[in-house]
């Protein structure tokens, strides 16, 4: 079992709060990713769950049992670190078995478990080597193996792939995902890499300033961001943000920026908008699509291409639609565009996000 319940957790150094009254509950078997910029408190939260730092208030429960002050070793957790944290003086085998040896587990059982984990992670040929004789990817696999051997119900990952190069990162990401599907244990994973978060997580907790901004599925976090921070933090290339106000005149609802009018009647508002409300309209580049010909459709604009950035599978284009509105939008890389061309695009309003400019919340 691996339920985690965090209740009004406070963590502070001296007088500054790193985490303030944080609540989070995680289901058994769930893969949760804590995502956020550096200094947002995500690693602090993970360390608190692991029992590696003292809490100043609140509680942490595993399966209904209060573990707020339980020693790390008695929490039934395994942890993988960014710098691998392998014991440099021990062989791979000794590294993996260290915890069990300290716990005084029988030799035969230790052997079995190490072999099981080594097989799972293809570490068998490396068992007698020292960490210094391994590559970065191998080291991280050993570190994962060390966590697995501990027979934990909750696994903690602290930016495990950050020290690896892009290719290895993708490989190991896949391996971790397979591992989760095979073991079905709870995994809590800290990262600042949104691709890792989106690909791995059942739910993502986006954090900033020690507060969870949004806790939701990858789809919702990306497509229905709860506030401006989440909206702009996710997505690469980033979201276009247009500032303006709403007008309810003439039946529908219109978004009015300085010299652009966008009909947002089809947008699903959570809270009914007010006349004249100052809002920020967030449009992802992929939701501005190029329209050929002279179709008569809503929200079609024509602009002039200022910059073309080929990104491989697609091309990012920066086009100027009015004196002070330059938006980025994606096109298929097959289509050839050059600077100075004029282009006609449609903004897909249903896929946009509207935020109250003052509070930053989605409306």
């Amino acid at each position, binding site marked *: 079992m691996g339920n985690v319940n965090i209740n009004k957790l406070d963590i502070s150094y001296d007088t500054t709060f790193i985490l303030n009254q944080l609540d989070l509950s995680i289901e058994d078997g769930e893969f949760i990713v804590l995502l956020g910029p550096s200094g947002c408190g995500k690693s602090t939260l993970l360390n608190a769950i692991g*029992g590696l730092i003292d809490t100043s208030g609140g509680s942490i429960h595993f399966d209904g049992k209060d573990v707020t002050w339980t020693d*790390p070793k008695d929490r039934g957790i395994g942890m993988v670190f960014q710098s691998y944290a392998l014991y440099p*003086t021990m062989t791979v085998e000794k590294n993996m078995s260290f915890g069990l040896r300290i716990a005084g587990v029988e030799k035969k059982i230790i052997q079995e478990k190490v072999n099981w984990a080594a097989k799972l992670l293809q570490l068998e040929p490396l068992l007698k080597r020292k960490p210094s004789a391994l590559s970065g990817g191998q080291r991280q696999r050993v570190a994962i193996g060390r966590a697995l051997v501990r027979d934990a119900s909750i696994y903690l990952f*602290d930016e495990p792939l950050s020290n690896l190069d892009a290719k290895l990162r993708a490989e190991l990401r896949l391996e971790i995902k397979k591992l989760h599907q095979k073991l079905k244990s709870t995994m809590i994973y800290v990262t600042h890499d949104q691709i890792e978060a989106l690909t791995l997580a059942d739910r993502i907790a986006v954090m900033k300033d020690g507060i969870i901004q949004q806790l939701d599925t990858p789809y919702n976090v990306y497509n229905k961001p709860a506030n401006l921070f989440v909206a702009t933090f996710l997505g690469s290339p980033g979201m276009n943000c247009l500032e303006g106000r709403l007008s309810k005149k003439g039946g529908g609802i219109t978004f009015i920026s300085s010299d652009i009018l966008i009909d947002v009647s089809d947008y699903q508002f959570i809270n009914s908008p007010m006349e004249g409300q100052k809002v920020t309209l967030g449009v992802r580049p992929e939701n501005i699509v190029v329209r050929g010909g002279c179709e008569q459709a809503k929200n079609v604009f024509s602009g002039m291409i200022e910059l073309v950035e080929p990104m491989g599978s697609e091309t990012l284009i920066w086009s100027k639609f009015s004196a002070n509105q330059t938006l980025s939008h994606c096109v298929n890389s097959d289509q050839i565009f050059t600077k100075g061309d004029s282009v006609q695009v449609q903004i897909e309003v249903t896929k946009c996000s509207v935020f109250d400019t003052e509070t930053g919340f989605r409306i």
Partner: protein
Amino acid sequence: MLSISPTNLKFASKRASSIQMQWGRIGIYGFLLVTALFFLLPLYVMLVTSFKELDEIRLSSIFALPQDVSWDYWKVAWSSACTGLECNGLQVGFWNSVQILIPSVIISVMFGAINGYALSFWKIKGANILFACLLLGAFIPYQVFIYPLIRVYAEIGIYGTLTGVVVSHVIFGMPIMTLLFRNYYSTLPIELFNAARIDGAGFFKVFFIIMLPMSTPIIIVAVIMQVTNIWNDFLIGLVFAGNDNLPMTVQLNNIVNTTTGERAYNVNMAATILTSLVPLIIYVASGRWFVRGIASGSVKG
């Protein structure tokens, strides 16, 4: 008209600068050699004089080579030179120094390692202030502590004993040893410590199984520093050792300053070389390790 092309100009100036550079090299080597002679001079004087007969010393220059090499004065210095009424030579001081050195080095390095480990990895309240006070202690002249310490030692019965000197060396070596290990351990990732904690290792298991095996380089530096510092110590030995345990440096000073008749410069210089032999051998053998020690923030008493 371009009578002097830019390339020509450049060429000329390059040649001039290469001549300048050659003179510069000569100047550098000249300066280094002269300074090296100044630094080696005392060693040379001690060495040649220790082989000369007294008459020869009186008649010839202190810088002249000895007429014939005789180890007699070294033997006298070692086994029969006099300090006051006793004439057992420096060997007494040597063995005293060894007896002081071994426990002092072992205990002070051990304390330094544990302190440094506790300070870098464990969250001890007030640790920073404690450490600052400890460091401050390294800079304060021993004269401030000496009198009260004598009283305390006398009270618990270790004044003038081997234990007393060893305790003093541990106390006064603690700041630099702690600093050395603290700085070393703070370069290790805290994740290593966290991993060991999750694996269930407690305070001492993390230290002995994980940290200590990784500490070989800094232990070598610490041992080199402590051996040199303790061997070279004069003040602590003089004040706390008591007459039966006087270290070699104190005895050397006594031998040299014992005035009975003509000064036996040859014996004295042999005795001086003998006393500095241990740190010299360590220095030459350890090479860069020694420099690493000072570079890591040395404080010499």
